[in-house]
């Protein structure tokens, strides 16, 4: 049962890659994504066993990934209709195949109960995403893809070394064989693992998966990849991949913390994570206001949110981890809605090709279409973390936990959050209400905008009135992974 949502996208990728016109491919892609989404929900009833054995965290984020893939693929149909002449039909087929590969690989990583499979899934997702970034075949897209490939490749190499070290660290507790690679086994035997080796392993894991999570100083690939690739795949679908890397770091952090808590010789993982998280947050805070291209701008904002989640994991304790996970959940919903809206906004102004996303080109959206402008403005506002945005709830939890557990780092955290919020707020006014470029005519809104509204409504619902079962799931998971 749990195998279906993983295998189906890979099989579908083969079919989508071989036959179909661009628009039909997009429709088939949407239909398949809907099936995968339903399967990720069905997976709750049968979490599997052995190598693919999802815990609640994997299931929850798997369902989120399925949902995002579905809404993105719906919005993608409109994108493909508008952008069809920009790529040849074989490239469009490759594009839709890559959409499915990224989805399947992300789900594999979330559901796998094996550190080796997790690594392999991140590798597949990276290769597919890099290929996707190179699809437009422009010089700048190739440069962005090359940068992504080199940085991602180094990250993957480091993560594999870390994975092998974790296996070696587990030898005293679990002996040779598959058991020493299963998260469930590792976390119940963490106390007997070799602490010093585990610490060494964690450094490699942190820098390896940290590259995929775009933590400073390993973030260089992300803004370029966001700005140059075909928009729906490289932007909206990228948040689930960031989540996969963040969850991987969270799980390995848990092993180390459990080792420390039971008197092992590992170093506490908190300081590593806090430093990287703050570095990401502050770098983004200082550089965000200088970005002119909207896709790069929101790429940097993804780096900020990865930083916040890692910071929360570094603070530790069930509440902070709950806050970090909630932050990831809501951020993913907001960011993908934002990119759907942004692509529609660029379409209102003529073209969705890279290079048409500068703030000066998009300004005064309200004169083009009110509905699109308000929703895009709402999505951008939601990123600042001011109420009524859902991120207010998660950031509030993280800040209050920081003050309680580690008051010294709450000052830089607050400075970083404020800087980012101000930089984002400064852009909303001109972008939505500013003077439009000359000859701007009102245009009808695209039906995709209802998806944006749905995402934003979900964010508010999840943050302020979270349904009981999800709340229970998240809080037991953050208790278990503290």
């Amino acid at each position, binding site marked *: 049962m749990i195998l279906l949502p993983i295998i189906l996208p890979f099989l579908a990728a083969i079919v989508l890659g071989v036959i179909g016109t661009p628009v039909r491919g997009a429709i088939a892609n949407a239909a398949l994504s809907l099936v995968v989404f339903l399967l990720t929900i069905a997976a709750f009833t049968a979490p599997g066993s052995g190598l693919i054995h999802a815990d609640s965290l994997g299931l929850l984020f798997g369902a989120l990934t399925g949902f995002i893939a579905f809404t993105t693929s719906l919005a993608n149909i409109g994108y493909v209709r508008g952008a069809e002449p920009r790529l040849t039909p074989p490239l469009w087929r490759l594009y839709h195949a890559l959409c499915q590969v990224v989805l399947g690989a992300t789900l594999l990583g979330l559901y796998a109960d094996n550190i080796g499979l997790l690594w392999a899934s991140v*590798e597949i997702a990276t290769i597919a995403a890099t290929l996707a970034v190179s699809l437009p075949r422009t010089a700048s897209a190739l440069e962005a893809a090359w940068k992504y490939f080199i940085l991602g490749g180094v990250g993957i190499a480091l993560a*594999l070394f870390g994975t092998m070290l974790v296996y070696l660290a587990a030898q005293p507790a679990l002996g040779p064989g598959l058991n020493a690679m299963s998260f469930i086994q590792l976390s119940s035997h963490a106390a007997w693992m070799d602490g010093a080796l585990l610490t060494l392993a964690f450094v490699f894991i942190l820098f390896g998966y940290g590259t995929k999570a775009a933590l400073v100083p390993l973030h260089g690939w992300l803004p370029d990849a966001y700005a140059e690739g075909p928009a729906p795949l490289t932007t909206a679908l990228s948040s689930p991949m960031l989540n996969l890397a963040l969850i991987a770091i969270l799980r390995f952090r848990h092993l180390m913390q459990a080792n420390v808590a039971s008197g092992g010789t590992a170093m506490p993982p908190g300081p590593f994570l806090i430093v990287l998280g703050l570095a990401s947050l502050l770098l983004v805070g200082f550089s965000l206001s200088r*970005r002119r291209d909207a896709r790069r701008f929101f790429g940097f904002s993804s780096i900020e949110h990865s930083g916040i989640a890692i910071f929360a994991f570094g603070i530790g304790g069930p509440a902070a981890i709950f806050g970090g996970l909630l932050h990831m959940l809501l951020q993913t919903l907001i960011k993908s809605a934002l990119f759907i809206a942004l692509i529609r906004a660029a379409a209102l102004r003529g073209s969705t090709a890279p290079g048409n996303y500068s703030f000066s080109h998009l300004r005064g959206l309200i004169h083009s279409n009110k509905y699109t402008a308000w929703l895009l403005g709402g999505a951008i506002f939601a990123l600042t973390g001011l109420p009524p945005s859902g991120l207010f709830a998660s950031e509030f939890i993280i800040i209050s936990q920081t003050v309680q557990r580690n008051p010294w780092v709450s000052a830089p955290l607050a400075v970083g959050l404020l800087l980012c919020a101000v930089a984002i707020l400064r852009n909303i006014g001109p972008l939505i209400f500013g003077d439009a470029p000359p000859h701007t005519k009102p245009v009808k809104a695209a039906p995709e905008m209802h998806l944006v509204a749905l995402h934003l409504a979900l964010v508010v619902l999840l943050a302020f009135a979270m349904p009981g079962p999800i709340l229970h799931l998240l809080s037991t998971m953050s208790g278990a992974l503290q």
Partner: protein
Amino acid sequence: MNLTFSLAHLMGGLILLCAFLLLSQRRLAAMITLYQVQALTLSAAAVWQGFAQHEVNLYLTGIITLALKGVLLPIALRQIVLRFNLTRAVESTMPMALSMMLGTGLIGIAVLVVLPSTMSAVSLTREDLAIALSVVLLGLLVMTARRSALAQIIGFLSTENGLVLAAIGMPGMPFVAEFSVALLVLLAFLVVGIFLLRIREHFDTLDITGIEDIERRGR
């Protein structure tokens, strides 16, 4: 048992030596030859470990390494050099002497980090791991010390050899052959990427300084 030790160490040492010599080479052809020697030694090391640990998986890893990394990849790399006429020396970002000193320092760090933290592991694994980590770090250093995309790829290939060396030294590690295949897929994409993406057309030479273009054009 003693023969297991000394042969494994000899081959590990050879791999490390190749990784270190990569730092000192200015010519692409010489770098490719060094990589080939490294890959061949690695395949011998994998087969030897397979014999010592009685693991079929490791024999498989050795054969895959021999066929793909010892023979096919070097041929592809030489083809790229010929096709793109890259016979000139590679530009480096730092003086040769500095990079060699840094390399020595990295080997020292690897040994100092790994040996004390692996007291409980078998000594063969410990020393293998120290060598493997040195190879990984040296490969990364080659990547930062060279400007040409192809030289950076060779650095990455060397890093990857270090990873496989670490994997074959782990006692009874599952998926070793699968890992090496997965890594090879990544490498194949890198090498084929140069062909398909025709980086030369866009970057003029295989010099990736052009990447900073993006940064200059105000993100």
